[in-house]
Every structure is written in structure tokens, then in C-alpha cells.
């Protein structure tokens, strides 16, 4: 069975790398994008992840704008907002995220949230 594929979009390289290592240990396949524009390029080029994990505050497109444009490209993968913003739940609702996690998040909670959102195969 193919491992579930997560697209991680965050401008902090160290955080992306740590998320990549952790999620890989948990059996996910991870693709990293350092910003919204890069994520859109990947999706335009045919990347079809099972899940999206997005930061909000990033240079260029923020996480909400990125998700809206990804959705416009007919990618309906469940999306998780991972942010330190105090109004995270409002942001998530406003942009159509399926779940929101407040930084700093415990790895167990992160992994459980992603697994819960995985589309049934």
C-alpha cells in the first residue's frame, strides 16, 4: 500500500525538515514547499498529495490564500492549518481548512490529526 502523501508548506526550513523527518518516521511520504507560490507550482505540475499541511504567516501568499488557489486547481485534499496565530480557528474557517493546529503542537496530536483526515481508500 502506498504511504499517505503530505505536502508541507512552511517558510521555515528547519521546521519543514523536522516535520519531514517526523512524518516520514510515522509512515508518511512528505513533499516540502518553502512557500505558497512553490506549493502552487508543484500542484500545477501534477502533484496530488493526500493531505496538505500549511503554515499561515509566510512571505508572498499566506496559508489561506495558498489553500484557496490550490482548491481552484481542483485539489480537494484535506488541509490542516498549522499556525501560532491567536485567531487560528477564525482563519481556518474563513479559508476552508479542515482542521487547525496551534503551534507548538505535540507530534502525537499532529500525526493523529493527519491520520484522521486521511481519505478512506
Amino acid at each position, binding site marked *: 500500500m502506498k504511504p499517505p502523501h503530505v505536502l508541507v508548506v512552511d*517558510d*521555515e526550513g*528547519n*521546521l519543514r525538515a*523536522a*516535520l519531514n*523527518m*517526523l512524518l516520514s*518516521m510515522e509512515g508518511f511520504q512528505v513533499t516540502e514547499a518553502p512557500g505558497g507560490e512553490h506549493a502552487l507550482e508543484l500542484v500545477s505540475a501534477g502533484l496530488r498529495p493526500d493531505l496538505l499541511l500549511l503554515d499561515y*504567516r*509566510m*512571505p508572498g501568499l499566506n496559508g489561506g490564500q495558498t489553500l484557496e488557489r490550490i482548491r481552484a486547481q481542483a485539489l480537494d485534499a484535506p488541509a490542516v492549518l498549522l*499556525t*501560532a*496565530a*491567536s485567531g487560528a480557528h477564525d482563519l481556518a474557517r474563513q479559508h476552508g481548512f479542515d482542521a487547525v493546529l496551534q*503551534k*507548538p*503542537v*505535540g*507530534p*502525537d*496530536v499532529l500525526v493523529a490529526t493527519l491520520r484522521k483526515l486521511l481519505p478512506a481508500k
Partner: protein
Amino acid sequence: MSMRFQAASGHSPNGVRAAWRQFVDSGTIDAARVRMPIAQAWRRSRTAGCDPYQVRADVLSPADTAALIRAEGRLVEIATPFLAALSRAAGAERHAAMLGDASGRVLKIVGDAETVADENFPRAGSLLSEATAGANGIGTALAEGSYVELVGPEHFIEGFHVFTCQGVPLLGLRREPVGVLSMSVRKQATAAKVRDILFCASEAAECELLSERLTETLASAAPLEHILEALRQDIVQRIAMARLQFELAARQIAAGTDAFATLSAAQQLIQKFRRQAAVWRNLVGQSTAAAEPAELADLVDDFISLMETEARVAHVQLAWKRADRSLVFDDVQALSQRLLTALLNAIQVTLPGGQITVSLVKLEREAVVMLGSRLADGSEYVDRVAAPLVR
């Protein structure tokens, strides 16, 4: 990695056991056989009337324990992932990772099934202050106000001699104890394996508690609320990264691989968080508004680091020419706010893709932070923030 503690060293278990026996029988310390902090902890235990052969059972009722855990809910919530990671790092070894409150009352235990199920082992609701449980990883860490390790017979109560226990107090904003993290294992080798990660866990948990205070503080900082909230998010990002590095380290230790690099990275993030949080607190006016000596180059250093993401979001590069030491005497809170205003103005007027050059000039009576960038019409933007030098 900078460690704030030293592990137990040197003394043979038999020598310590003999010293313990002599102390409980006669009250005299054999200083050649027992470490000074342990000797002091034994004296405190004895003075408090602790019985070396029996734990004084002070365990809350299930209802009172539940009420205490509810009252300390945020501490428990923050510490839980760290307890789980400590337990993971210990792997299949007999162990218990514990969280205590500021009085040494156990709030939560995570460990192997056998240890946790042992009815003689402390449980949630047990009081492990030195007065009740003698020198031990929780009570002694709180009494000393710093990391402790007690190996076997260094515990005051004989029933704990099979354990090696380590404890680190968790400190609040004013460095007051708010709780304690502790790790008890049967093998000293396992204790050595988890020592660094316990230290890192305590630092990270303290930072998470502090980051909550930043959120609470923000509500009172109306004029610059938007930018301060953005900077707060950037600071919390450091802790988010540290938490993940910490988890990775726990897994590396459990797998028997070297976690030093990962823990060092987490440690650096934690230090960065602490410095940035200190700058941030100055910005929201939580510090005392009195003049004090401050190293301006360090302050600008931390400021530039704090503003990195904000500048990146504005597509502006900050170029900071690290300067020689410039000890100034100023109201650090007001100085920080002047620096913030100057940097925000500079970011606002600088063209996307442009660069703000920050430098420090030392004059006869003052040190001046110079900010320069190029404007859309091609002219040069210059701003300055001055502070009087210490005479």
C-alpha cells in the same frame, strides 16, 4: 550544548551506601564518600523528621487528585508530550517520567507498565517533597532550585535505593518554581542516556509556559497590537521547532542513535526563544521603566533576529553589521520601542527586494544605531536611534 547541571560522579555505590548507613544511624556525614548537595539533602530530610526506612504516605484522595490536576491543567497539558517523549527515550527499560507541582505533589506519571502499576511506587497525588519522601528527584530538585541526580543510596529512603532519579524544576517568568520534571530509572546507564533530553524537556516546557504569558500580555498592548501579534507568532515558531527537534531526539535515543546534534539544535532554538521573548516583553511594556546598563549590540542582535520573518514577509533584507560592545545606560523598554518603530518605518519605506543596513556607531557620549535603505525615488533613507553610553 550548554548544560546547567552536573551529573553524579565519582563516588562508589558501596561507599555511598556505607555513608548513608552511618548518617541514618548517627547523623554524621562522611564527606569523602558523599557529594555535598546530597549530604545537604540528607540533613534536610532528617531535620524534617523523615523516616529513612519508610515513605510517609501522603497521597491525596482520587477526588482531590483530580481537582489538583484540573487546577494545574495547563501545566499538565504542556508537560504531557514531554513526559511521553522522555518515556519513549527510555524505551523498554524500567522507568517513570513524572511531573510534580511546585510543592512536589505528583501530577502525572508516564512509564513502563510494571513500574507504574507497582503499588509501592508514587502515583498521581503522592507528595514527594523532601520532608515527606526524603532526598529524591522531585523534592530535592525543588529544594535545590536546580537539576539534581540521585543514584541509588543517595536517596534518603531505603525503598528508593533501587532507582536513579533525576529532577529539574520548571521555572516561571520570575524564575519561581511552578513545577518539576523528573525521571526515575533502574539502570544508571539509562539515566545517562536520558539526561540531556530531560534537561531539554524542562527548558522547552518552561518556554511553552512563557509563550502562553506572551499571548495573555498581548491583550494589553493595543497601539502596536498587529505587529506584536505577528512577532509573537514568530517567537512561538522557535518553540514549535524545538518541540519537534525534541521529539526527534527522543526517537533517536530510543533507537540507540546519537541525538546530540538534534538536542543541540533544540537547545539553540530554546535560547533564541528566550532572548526574543525578553525583547518582546520589553516591547509590550512589561519590564520596569527604569534606566539600566544594557549591551546595545546584543540588543540589536536580538532585535534583528526577532524581525527576520517580518522583513522576509515584506521582501526586505536586513543587513546587520555586528559591532563592538557598546554598553549604554537607558530605559531598555523605551529603547526597544524606539528600535521597533525605527525598523518598522524602515521596512515600510524600503522597496520590496531592497535591503536595510543596520549599523552601530559609537560616539563620545552615545551609541547610535543607524538604519539606512534606498527609497523608490532613488534617494537614501536614514534613521538613527541613540542611547547614552555608560560613563
